[in-house]
């Protein structure tokens, strides 16, 4: 379930005689792996190296790339919109990822009981996560959080008037994107729910006998047992959040506005690369993103030994 358990478990030697010589099955393996190996070279490692090279050049697709050394990276340091996009993205990640875990966990806890219509609830909570990245829902969001949108109509019912457009207000626009992606919490919730069902009831009952309150039982038993799943959900949530694109692009009409308040890193990268045709600068931005994500992932895996509990530990 988690990345750490992904490596091959020790396999018992088969009793039947194997085909071919020795234990390895190199030729059949090559035959089965060829598409993937070709794809790795053509569509992953080749392009990665190419983009590393491009990040040291000035390139507009029309003339040949011109070597400029570290200039692109230096330019980033003094580019206010670059820093703005970093700020927007970090704010988004820091607010959205923890919020996503909390909401998912709360709903999963509510669903984790002998509830009637459980399958129905599960399906309905899950459904939005299949639509959260669609243009249709982002377009709907623009209406829902518009000046005459649903949110303001509801606020009007309780007497709060003249709130204005949410997507048009620099102070609130990022909040609408966070809500949009939070709306799709179902996939994270489903993983938590599956985990909650594995928590041994004996442990919880024993704690109850000892007089532990519900909250105490959650923090002392349930949550520690769920840490592998929390680890997985936070890791994937963070990686995805850094790359979030469609919601911000559609809600802001491609601009990252108003006044760059939703200028996600990926939006700015897209704008630099494909609107202004500064392929070198955009490649440098892509590599900065890669390095930041690698560092974040690395720290995360390192930290996991202090707070992630696997069941087989003594």
């Amino acid at each position, binding site marked *: *379930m*988690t990345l750490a358990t*992904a490596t*091959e478990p020790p396999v018992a030697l088969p009793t*039947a005689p194997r*085909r071919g010589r020795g234990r*390895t*099955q190199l030729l*059949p*393996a090559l*035959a*089965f*792996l060829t*598409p*993937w190996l*070709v794809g790795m070279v053509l*569509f*992953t490692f080749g*392009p990665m190296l*190419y*983009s590393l090279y491009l990040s040291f050049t000035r390139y507009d*697709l029309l003339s040949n790339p011109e070597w400029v050394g570290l200039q692109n990276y230096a330019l980033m340091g003094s580019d206010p919109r670059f820093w703005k996009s970093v700020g927007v993205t970090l704010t988004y990640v820091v607010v959205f990822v923890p919020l996503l875990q909390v909401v998912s966990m709360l709903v999963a806890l*509510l669903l984790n009981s002998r*509830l009637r219509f459980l*399958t129905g*609830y599960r*399906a*309905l909570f*899950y459904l*939005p996560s*299949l*639509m959260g990245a*669609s*243009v*249709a*829902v982002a*377009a709907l969001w*623009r209406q829902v959080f518009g000046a005459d949108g*649903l949110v303001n*109509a*509801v606020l009007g019912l309780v007497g709060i008037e003249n709130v204005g457009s949410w997507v048009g207000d620099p102070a609130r626009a990022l909040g609408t994107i966070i809500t949009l992606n939070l*709306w799709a919490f179902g*996939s994270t919730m*489903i*993983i938590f*729910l599956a985990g909650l*069902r594995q928590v041994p009831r004996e442990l919880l009952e024993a704690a109850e*006998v000892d007089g532990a309150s519900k909250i105490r039982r959650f923090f002392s038993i349930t949550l520690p047992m769920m840490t592998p799943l929390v680890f997985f959900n936070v890791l994937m949530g963070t990686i995805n959040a850094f790359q979030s694109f*469609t919601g911000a*692009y*559609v809600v802001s009409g*491609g601009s990252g506005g108003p006044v760059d308040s939703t200028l996600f890193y990926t939006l700015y990268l*897209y704008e630099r*690369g*494909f609107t202004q045709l500064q392929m070198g600068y955009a490649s440098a931005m*892509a590599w900065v*993103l*890669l390095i930041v*994500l690698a560092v974040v*992932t690395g720290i995360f895996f390192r930290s996991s030994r202090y707070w992630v509990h696997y069941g087989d530990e003594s």
Partner: protein
Amino acid sequence: MTTTLSAPPQPTRVPRPWDARTQRPAGNRVVKGVIKHAVLLCVLLIMLYPLLWMVGASFRPGNQTFAGLSLFSDTYTLQNYADGWSVGNLNFSRYFVNSAIITIGQIVGNLVACSLTAYAFARLEFPFKRVLFGMVIATMLLPQHVTLIPKYIIFNQMGWVDTYLPLTVPHFFAVDAFFIFLMVQFIRTLPKSLDESARIDGCGHWGIFWRIIMPMSLPAIGTTAMFTFVWAWNDLLGPLLYLPSSDLWTVSLGLNSFLDQTGQSTYGTLFAMATLSLAPIVGFFIASQRLLVEGIATTGLK
């Protein structure tokens, strides 16, 4: 798949000393259950209301699109749906066909390439297997933006921009590492004794893959197909880059362009097309609800 079967009921449960404490009055439990349902329904209502409202608004005449909070209306019309297919210079029937072509291409590609790769990782022994599987995991975590620009440049030089090829062909080379991972995890749960008996009966690796592993991997295959469908159908960035001419646009691109030129008067039409664009997702979801929800729960896929 233990999600629905957790804690099998114990038929003859020995009364335990603490039962007296855990058994609360029945009335209390009923009240708690009602509160739980009420909270869940409230959350669901808030979540799904915008979607329902959009569907409602798509059936209203143009001048009533924004008729307040209500889902319903005095008059219903299909006019928005009729208008939507060819609003302005847009051509949605074309876009739906394009989206379908690209989506089917990606599904076929992912199924073929990822299952072949997964079989090798799950069942064969070869040098550097752990390192190579580590690369599968690494590409899963790799931000797509790192390869975005060079891929665009390469496809541009190959003359593939403005064709479906950049959006479909890479999937025949197992670029979606997620699905390799998913299928490897699944195939590992299948008993190896079946492979062995097939081998004794004279099956080669291809025979084992095609006649034994694939038929037993239908849940993993279904999950892969479903998720590829959703990702391909929703994708905006890929089509935005590779499909500049409107003849090749997908539904996502069409909606995005429509949104840019929409005034208050055409919002109803936009909602009609947005509703239609979500319909296949809902349809597939209903058709495969159990598979999807349990597949995601057991593999951790988003």
